């Protein structure tokens, strides 16, 4: 079959299809009224929801640190300075990353529409999706930092309490016992961190991984310098 035959087959087919699917003004109007969200629209909505959820979570973490803990724990706890530093550092990191993300998002927000050149559109969607990925991993990191800090603080308090009951306090523990405690703590904490990360990473890739790959492939196909020898 030659290309001219392909053309005539297409003409016959497409004219028949047009007759078959022809719609009136009212049907078109009806379709517009019942508009559904495209994948990009849904990602955009998810980012906005994510921004709000993260803000609430960060607010909770900070309020819990500076206010709630003091009310709920009746006996005063004196943490060592390295633990205080870790706490302040993780909170500062979380807030800075969040602010950086929000600024980035609003900078790329709606910098493209469907009537722009395909390359710009693909780049716009890719940037939105990558921003969403950044937000997702930021949430994962916040969660993991929170788990780690709480775990370390919990272990420290537990050991301090137990050491106070059975001996002369935490200062009397031998180096080997401290090393054993650290090893046991890490043996529990690391699998929790790794499994949580892998599970969330798998979930994100399952939802958007293929879309990202296809967008990148299409963008590469449009790149003249790569495809013209």
């Amino acid at each position, binding site marked *: 079959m030659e290309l001219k035959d392909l053309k005539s087959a297409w003409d*016959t087919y497409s004219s028949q299809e047009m007759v078959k699917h022809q719609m009136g003004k009212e049907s*078109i109007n009806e379709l*517009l009224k019942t508009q*559904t969200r495209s994948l990009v629209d849904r990602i955009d909505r998810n980012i906005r929801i994510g921004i709000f959820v993260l803000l609430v979570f960060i607010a909770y973490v900070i309020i819990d640190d500076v206010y709630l803990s003091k009310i709920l724990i009746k006996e005063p706890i004196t943490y060592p300075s390295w633990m205080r530093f870790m706490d302040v550092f993780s909170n500062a990191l979380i807030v800075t990353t969040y602010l950086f993300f929000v600024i980035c998002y609003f900078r790329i927000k709606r910098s493209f529409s469907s009537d722009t050149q*395909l390359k710009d559109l693909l780049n716009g969607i890719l940037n939105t999706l990558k921003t969403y990925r950044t937000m997702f991993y930021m949430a994962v990191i916040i969660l993991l930092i929170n788990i780690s800090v709480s775990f370390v603080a919990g272990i420290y308090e537990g050991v301090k309490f137990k050491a106070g009951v059975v001996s002369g306090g935490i200062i009397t523990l031998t180096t080997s016992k401290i090393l054993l405690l650290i090893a046991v703590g890490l043996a529990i904490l690391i699998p929790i961190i790794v499994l949580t990360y892998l599970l969330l990473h798998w979930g994100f890739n399952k939802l958007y991984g293929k879309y990202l790959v296809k967008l990148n492939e299409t963008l590469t196909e449009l790149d003249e310098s790569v495809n013209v020898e």
Partner: protein
Amino acid sequence: MEKEFLQIITENQGIIHKVCSIYCDLEEDRRDLFQEILVQLWKSYSSFRNESKFSTWMYRVALNTAITSFKKDKRQPDKSGVAYESIQLAEELYDTRTEDQIKLLNNAVGQLTGIEKSIILLFLEDKKYEEIAEITGITQNYVRVKMNRIKKKLKLLMNTEE
């Protein structure tokens, strides 16, 4: 503006149907894509400033939407370029030769990538390289290169099928 939009879309809806025909193999996907293109056209309509022909602008929005709206895996849209149900219906309407040609067209186009489908559609619609370049946003030179490759690919695919 809504009335004007509806009027102009009703008159030019053939463009959307053609894009849907080349990108979707199932009636359900076709309806979804038609609606998605319609929504994107409406969203972008206010930015249309007569700098290009209306049909050029409409092809661009429709093809951009089709290329970027990858469907869920379960539907496998890229296995076929032309709706299977339509071919079954076509069997009653066309003679055997045309029917065979449409099946060949279906199988061959179905194996092209999203960009290649858009170029072959515009080629089949007798668009010049200049207009194809304007719609797809790639250079005329690259359109020529792509078109030559697509022609070779289609010939090979169709000869294998025959």
